[in-house]
């Protein structure tokens, strides 16, 4: 009876105990929470530039620019027409050349099936005057074309005649529910990649991702949970924390203007003044975040410092507006308590820590906070049982474009205008911005917009951070990409 058990156990321990093999220096093992579900170029296309098996027409860089990638140049011809010139020698991993005819088919597929492309290129028509040039015309001006084409959710470049064939430095050799394996693309147009293989494991549990790097089972863990980072932050040996250069992830506190008390301007302004942004970044989140000075990160040349902490002024504003202190822990006006229902969501566990901190900070000004965790934050914000929705949505996006986030979140017709902001003045400013082709002429408009948003309390940014990763010793100098291009041709060990 015992022998079989002993056999099973010893066999199990033998295989289970075998320590992870030391990775060859040209193989990278990386763990991430997000699954690549398929190689569908439209529905799941955004993963292709992230994991280096696909590319976009344009790309965002680490220092805030947008530059041609598969294209050689992108120039406006008229207000409503752009000239796209392809880089010579670009081929797919199956050897097929990318010429203007192929690009035309790709664009047509996106225009037909990709909601983002459909919405942003109204009435698009395509001409191909020669083998490397595409003329893209729209019915209204599209001034942010470079940024739009650098958005990972827009035009991914794929071989329309094959399944899952792209132009990147890697090709997908295996994809299932747990893992994606990438192999070096020997035919890559930009020269062979430094790594021969990348193994991407999908691990939803943040704790497990971090442990995997600590035990040496993975080289890099993406999206590490902040609560566990304290242990590896500033570590001198073993796994270390690495952060990207640009803080492109803003945590918005979206106010619900559709109901009391956030429909009261004084409450919104007091709310923004009572939050201690510095404490949240430095103490609550262990210095892993940077204190937001306004709604835009410093990389944006037009960023203004519109946010500050001033509890005394917050109190004064509330006093003046008739909210009187009470013994119930929150102020009262007309028999109603000043209590805010703040929405957090488990996919971003930091929202919980931040909400708990806000609860304590706002209490000092007499604003009560109730924290509600929801499974799907957008779904909850579409309902009406909330006052403040915390949501990680970059104000610039990963393509350094302020226009689309402004339009989506803050204009009356915006698709993510959850709080019901309806401000004709702001609508006009944003629409003007969308028509200003000259980049330097946009700055004054953006300044006006930022001041207006701050004055009317439409959008406090509670915290901001850059992409982080925990890296093991084999890839100690790896730095996460600011724009989510995790693996590129030049990623290497060391």
């Amino acid at each position, binding site marked *: 009876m015992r022998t079989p*058990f002993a056999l099973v*156990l010893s066999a*199990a321990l033998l295989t289970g105990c075998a320590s992870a093999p030391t990775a060859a220096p040209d193989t990278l093992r990386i763990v991430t929470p997000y699954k690549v579900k398929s190689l569908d170029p439209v529905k799941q296309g955004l993963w292709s530039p992230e994991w280096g098996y696909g590319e976009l027409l344009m790309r965002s860089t680490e220092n805030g620019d947008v530059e041609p990638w598969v294209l050689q140049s992108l120039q406006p011809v008229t207000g409503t027409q752009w000239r796209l010139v392809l880089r010579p020698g670009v081929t797919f991993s199956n050897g097929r050349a990318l010429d203007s005819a192929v690009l035309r088919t790709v664009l047509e597929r996106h225009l037909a099936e990709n909601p983002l492309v459909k919405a942003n290129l109204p009435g698009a028509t395509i001409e191909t005057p020669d083998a490397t040039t595409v003329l893209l015309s729209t019915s209204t001006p599209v001034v942010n074309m470079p940024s739009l084409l650098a958005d990972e959710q827009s035009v991914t470049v794929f071989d329309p005649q094959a399944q899952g064939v792209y132009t990147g430095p890697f090709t997908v050799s295996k994809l299932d529910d747990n893992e994606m394996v990438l192999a070096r693309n020997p035919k890559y147009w930009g020269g062979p990649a430094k790594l021969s293989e990348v193994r991407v494991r999908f*691990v939803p549990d943040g704790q497990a991702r971090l*442990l*995997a790097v600590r035990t040496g089972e993975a080289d890099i863990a993406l999206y590490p949970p902040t609560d566990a980072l304290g242990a590896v932050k500033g570590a001198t040996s073993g796994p270390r924390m690495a952060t990207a250069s640009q803080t492109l992830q803003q945590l918005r506190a979206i106010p619900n203007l559709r109901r009391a008390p956030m429909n009261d301007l004084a409450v919104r302004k007091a709310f923004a003044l009572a939050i201690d942004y510095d404490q949240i970044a430095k103490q609550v989140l262990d210095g892993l975040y940077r204190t937001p000075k306004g709604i835009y990160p410093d990389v944006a040349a037009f960023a203004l410092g519109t946010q500050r902490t001033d509890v005394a002024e917050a109190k004064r504003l509330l006093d003046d507006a008739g909210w009187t202190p009470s013994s119930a822990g929150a102020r009262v006006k007309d028999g109603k308590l000043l209590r805010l229902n703040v929405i957090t969501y488990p996919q971003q566990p930091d929202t919980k820590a931040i909400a708990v901190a806000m609860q304590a900070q706002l209490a000092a000004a007499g604003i009560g906070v109730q924290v509600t965790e929801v*499974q799907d934050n957008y*779904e909850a914000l579409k309902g009406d049982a909330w006052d403040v929705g915390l949501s990680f949505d970059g104000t610039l996006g990963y393509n350094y474009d302020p226009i689309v986030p402004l339009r989506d979140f803050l204009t009356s017709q915006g698709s993510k205008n959850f709080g019901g902001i309806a401000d004709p003045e702001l609508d006009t400013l944003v629409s003007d911005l969308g028509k200003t082709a000259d980049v330097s002429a946009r700055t004054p408009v953006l300044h006006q917009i930022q001041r207006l948003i701050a004055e009317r309390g439409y959008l406090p940014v509670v915290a901001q951070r850059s992409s982080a990763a925990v890296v093991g010793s084999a890839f100690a100098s790896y730095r996460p990409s600011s724009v989510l291009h995790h693996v590129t041709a030049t990623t290497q060990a060391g």
Partner: protein
Amino acid sequence: MLQALLRRAGQALLTLFIAAVVVWSLQLVAPGDPARRVLGALGFSNPTDEQIASTRRELGLDVSAPQRLLQWLLNAVTGDFGTSWRTGRPVTGELVERLPATLRLAVVALLLALLVAVPLALVAARWRGRAPDVGARAVMFLGAATPSFVVGTVVLELIVLRGGIGRVLADGSWGGAVLPAIPLALGAGAGWARVLRTSLVEVSDAPFIQISQARGATPLRRLLVHAMPSALPALLAAIGLTVGSLLAGAAVVETVFTWPGIGRYLIEAIGARDVPVVQATVLLGVLGYVVVSTVVDGVTIAITGKVKR
């Protein structure tokens, strides 16, 4: 006896049928519009009425509830549980992919649990009322009362991280199943040991055992050869019960150890309110339990020759 077995099997089928109806009907009282949720999962944050209507058609929500239930039951019999609201893939395929990992975990956990339970119960029963019994019972109690997620967290920290044994990124293999099985085995084994000890003690007091004692059999031999067979049905029943809660237990352990099984899949589905997946997974858990408890009853009937009530 054959009649009793057949009746037991008939009961099992009826139970399964009623459970299926109940599990399906739960969604009728669920809040929110499923069509809207499905569209949200696919990335349509502000769907048009048209999109909602066509999604309702696709999900088959435009026909009456009894009709849908009938269709679901008919499909379920052929092993078709519809498509996941979250991924749009057939639920059955996704479950089949993950089932082996959970079964492996379950088998290893059950073996480990036996390895814990039998010696513990024998020690306790052999030295009844004395120090080893007290010690063994304390272990049984601690094992049954410590939450499995605490055991799992400690195992990860002490054995995997500090001890360098085993892996964090479980691959679902037999070897990798040993560590995640520990929390499951500890809880189950402790419970079984308690049951086995109680019935060993009861049987030991029976006259026929007393006679064997008079004949000079050693205490351990008496327990193993004479008392054990009579105590077995109680242990079998306890094992059957454990298998019933295995799916829920696996959900916790698979989450702690990122084990690629159906328990974690169920939790992910609950988070996304992926109703077809929840229904199918729960029904699978019920099926497993009903089958095992029917088999246990069958074996018990075969051993004792009478129907347990």
